């Protein structure tokens, strides 16, 4: 379907007006909202993620693409809700206790939404107990922990410990942020580490068993 391909291209290029117009046209032509999301928008954001990982595009281009998708989702979400269609996976995200930094978390959140994850953003300075409660309430498949500062890395360890101790076997924990490494993720028992917003989608999909 050429229009779905056009939509994918519009999202990938961050063309907000075109993205909304094409979404409206697809719906008017009888394309299901689910198909618009899964075959039009999500592939567009996947292109963004791939190009971002390769440094072919940078944060500005990622932001305008995510905003274009967000505008389209405003049209689609009421229809998806009415049809009882929800994203297959739910992710919780927040910046760990002691840390108020949020741009990294926001970028990951946008990219996960772009990959059709339902995202619950807990904000900044999130206590281990709050992560756990949210993971239980939303039956989260992924819990994402972000930290900017070396001084707040210990809070990650404690959050991982509490969630693991609660025995949430279906919940995988991902960490990321400026001072974080794969080695640190291994040390504290996190299930995954993402170096950037593009690879955060890949890692999340791998952890939920939905990798391409």
């Amino acid at each position: 379907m050429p229009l779905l391909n056009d939509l994918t291209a519009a999202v990938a290029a961050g063309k907000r007006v075109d993205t909304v117009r094409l979404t409206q046209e697809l719906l008017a032509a009888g394309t299901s909202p689910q198909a618009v999301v899964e075959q039009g928008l999500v592939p567009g954001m996947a292109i963004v993620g791939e190009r971002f990982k390769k440094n072919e595009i940078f944060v500005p281009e990622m932001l305008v693409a995510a905003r274009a998708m967000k505008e389209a989702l405003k049209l689609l979400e009421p229809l998806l809700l009415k049809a009882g269609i929800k994203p297959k996976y739910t992710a919780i995200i927040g910046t760990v206790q002691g840390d108020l930094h949020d741009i990294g978390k926001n970028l990951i959140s946008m990219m996960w939404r772009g990959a059709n994850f339902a995202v619950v953003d807990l904000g900044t300075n999130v206590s281990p107990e709050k992560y756990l409660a949210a993971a239980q309430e939303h039956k989260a498949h992924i819990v994402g922990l972000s930290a900017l500062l070396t001084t707040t890395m210990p809070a990650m360890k404690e959050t991982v410990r509490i969630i693991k101790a609660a025995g949430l076997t279906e919940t995988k924990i991902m960490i990321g942020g400026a001072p974080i490494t794969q080695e640190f993720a291994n040390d504290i028992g996190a299930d995954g580490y993402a170096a950037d917003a593009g690879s955060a989608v890949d890692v999340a999909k791998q952890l939920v068993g939905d990798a391409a």
Partner: protein
Amino acid sequence: MKTCTMTGCERVERMFARRDQDRVPRCDTYWPETITRWQREGLQWDHNDALRLLETDFQGLCWSWPSAFPNQREVLAQDAETETIRDAWGGVARFWKGRSGTPEHISFGCDTREAWDKIYRPAMLAAPNQIDTHAAVLRFHEGRQLGRWTHLSGVEGFEALRRLIGDEACLMAMIEDPEWIRDIVSVHTDIVLRSFEGVLAEGAKPDGLWIYGDMAYNHATMCSPAMYRDLVWPAHKRMADWAHAHGMHVIYHTDGRVSGVLDLYIEAGFECLQPIEAKAGMDIRQFAPTHGSRLAMFGNIDVMKMATNNLDLIEEEIRTKFAAGMATRGYAYHSDHSVPPQVSWDTYKAIIGFIDRYGYY
């Protein structure tokens, strides 16, 4: 016991000239919590004592980050740990009480082109010089007495943009309204340079300009090199040209992975890069051979390794990176960020010992 034969100022000047020095120049920064820990473990006074023990060669005179509403600081809300403040840039952010760390930016007063044109631009241009020029001159004379390399410090346009209009608005406007971005960067740069002129007019003759602007994170620069070249680089070049016209050298501070723009920095007239963040994948063992003759390397000693307090690991870090940097004669010691509180005072004293061991030519 090794002997120093040069003043800090001579040493740093020779570093810029790639001429022989007695030892590598030194400087460092510390999180406030680190100093608090070290005071419990034997540091007598404050960060200045740590710098004296390190034998720092650098002396800052002033700090320029012009705002639209100098001295505005309105507390909007607070709890036991944080307070939410409307700041001098018109933004609202939540800060820790009595603790360092990046604030949470809640809103930005200058959130539209219209707000910039009608309120913020005129306010910034009308605001008085926000540098205490008298204090700067006293710091200059103190630095001269101590033999240190004296420098002006100020924020460049990209960092100013992020503070004024926020990351997301700034980065999207770089695509959608580049003229707005150019104007903010240009106005900011005009005001910073004007404020420095005030310091010079009071009689200071600093040796250098240390420009601050975090334009990258651990993956890459925030925007593409082409976008940087188009929108921000002209102001960087203008700052460097201004410094050179006044006989000053230029140091550029940025965190993050900036390997893709090193040549643009050199083209802008930046002569030294600091702090060269190791955890963002920056490694002077890689860059010194390719860029060290044109861009002095200042820092890159990994705070994550310092934080292990593993002296063998730290010694290897210092030994190998000093060797790479010193091979160009254009290297100065600094941690690759600020020394975190996981580092014990005993470890930091050992670090100074390693700097002594490996940092003499």
